[in-house]
């Protein structure tokens, strides 16, 4: 089966500074792919190039190819790409002025969906998929900011899922959460692979080992090694990978 996303010699810059260099990597469909590496190695930059969020930063640019189902995402309109490749950020960021319902419906509403029944169904399904429905079903009109940190992050996942993307990118989604909230999100990521292709950036190697089918190790903007998660952690081929996962640096 061809990969869901394929990058070909992908490089990205912030002004004159190159953040990632010649990355060629596949992300399989209906699988969870993890990207690990020390801070500043270009993990976030890499996934932000996949849905063209990288270019929203002034003076940032990317070169190389990103193929989504064999379509070049840089040949498609950026808004289309972002609807097909959703994203969840490090810090939960529900829209402060919107209720829980409006947050989840925002992606559809602001893209022109007005049909109330359709929105209701999408909100219900997305909140259920994000494992948040039971906790918020009686308070859908409360502000999204009134939820706890872990709930806010699941709200953001529901918001991203509501536009029915094919791929979900997650940029260190648990780094601001406590262990219980983290465990809930990890369970959720495990379930999401049935319907979505998930790419998760994490600096937590245990997390990658728990949720990912394949793992890629990045160091100083370069792809060092990629393999099945188990293989990468048990039998790394590169000495750099081995020293990182055994905690000798990073």
């Amino acid at each position, binding site marked *: 089966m061809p990969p869901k996303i394929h990058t070909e010699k992908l490089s990205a810059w912030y002004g004159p500074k190159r953040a990632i260099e010649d990355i060629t990597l596949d992300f399989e469909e209906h699988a969870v792919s993890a990207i690990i590496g020390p801070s500043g190695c270009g993990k976030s930059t890499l996934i932000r190039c996949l*849905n063209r*969020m990288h270019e*929203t930063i*002034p003076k940032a640019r990317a070169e190389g190819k990103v193929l989504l189902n064999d379509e070049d995402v840089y040949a498609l309109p950026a*808004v*289309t*790409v*972002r*609807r*097909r490749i*959703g*994203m969840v*950020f490090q*810090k939960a*960021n529900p*829209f*402060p*002025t919107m209720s829980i319902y409006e947050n989840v419906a*925002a*992606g559809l509403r*602001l*893209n022109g969906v007005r049909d109330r029944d359709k929105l209701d169904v999408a909100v219900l399904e997305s909140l259920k998929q994000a494992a948040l429905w039971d906790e918020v079903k009686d308070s859908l009109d409360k*502000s999204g*900011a*009134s939820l706890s940190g872990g709930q806010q992050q699941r709200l*953001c996942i529901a*918001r*991203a899922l509501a*536009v029915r993307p094919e791929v979900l990118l997650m940029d260190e989604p648990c780094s601001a959460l406590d262990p219980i909230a983290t465990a809930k999100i990890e369970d959720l990521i495990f379930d999401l692979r049935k319907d979505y292709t998930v790419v998760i950036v994490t600096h937590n190697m245990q997390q990658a080992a728990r949720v990912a089918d394949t793992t890629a190790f990045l160091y100083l903007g370069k792809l060092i090694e990629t393999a099945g998660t188990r293989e990468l952690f048990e039998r790394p081929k590169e000495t750099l990978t081995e020293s990182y996962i055994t905690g000798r640096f990073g």
Partner: protein
Amino acid sequence: MNLGAFFCVVIALIPLGSLLFEATVRGIRSISPGFFALTTANGGIGNAIQGTLILIGLTAAIALPVGILTGIYLAEYGKNRVGAAIRFFVDVMTQIPSIVVGIFAFSLLLELGAIGIVSSRLVFSTTTGVIALSTIMIPFVARTSEEALRLVPISTRESALALGIPRYRAILRVVLPSASSAVITGALLGIARVGGETAPLLMTCLGSGYWFEGLDQPCESLPHTIYVFALGPDSALNQAAWGASLILVLMMLGIAIASRVVIRLRAGTR
């Protein structure tokens, strides 16, 4: 230190307290139904209140959209040389003395009238007054809106863009509502600012003893009434000036309170 700071606060508040006290004590005596019903030609201020409301309304109708859109441009698209240049000129415009703005509006209409683009009647008219007041209010609103929008975290913009929402819509429907209480406060303060302007109106709206007669005619306004009444030869007029001052102060106070209420209400819904 604490005592010193407290002392300075007292000194700073003396003019405010004294002003409110004097305006209330002296002004309250003028307040009667007739004071509001009569025109300035007959010793009332009815037409001045009417004129001020019309001037403020028309100015807001022009300056709020233009100012807020300028603020959006500066905050969202202005991170380059063009933006920096516009920001500089907007800053300069906020510093221009209002009498100079009055001269600007006056001479603009005078020139336009001289070459026949507009009727030369417009030189001293409500229209010219609105142009002058808008020139004062637009940069003020633009800067307060820009500051308000800058306080909205980048992450709010990013999460909207990541949903595939086009940038202009993300700004209008997500970022602007997030900044709305600060934008509304800026707008109300801008209205209060132009509501109290006298200098630019002296050479544009001119003043009138009658009820509002049209956009191409001079019109009366509260600050102008105060100016004329206070300089007037007869003590009844001087007394009426105090009454007009009280009304103007109360109007501005009302706007300030309204802005607080807006913030309180919006915070309450969260």
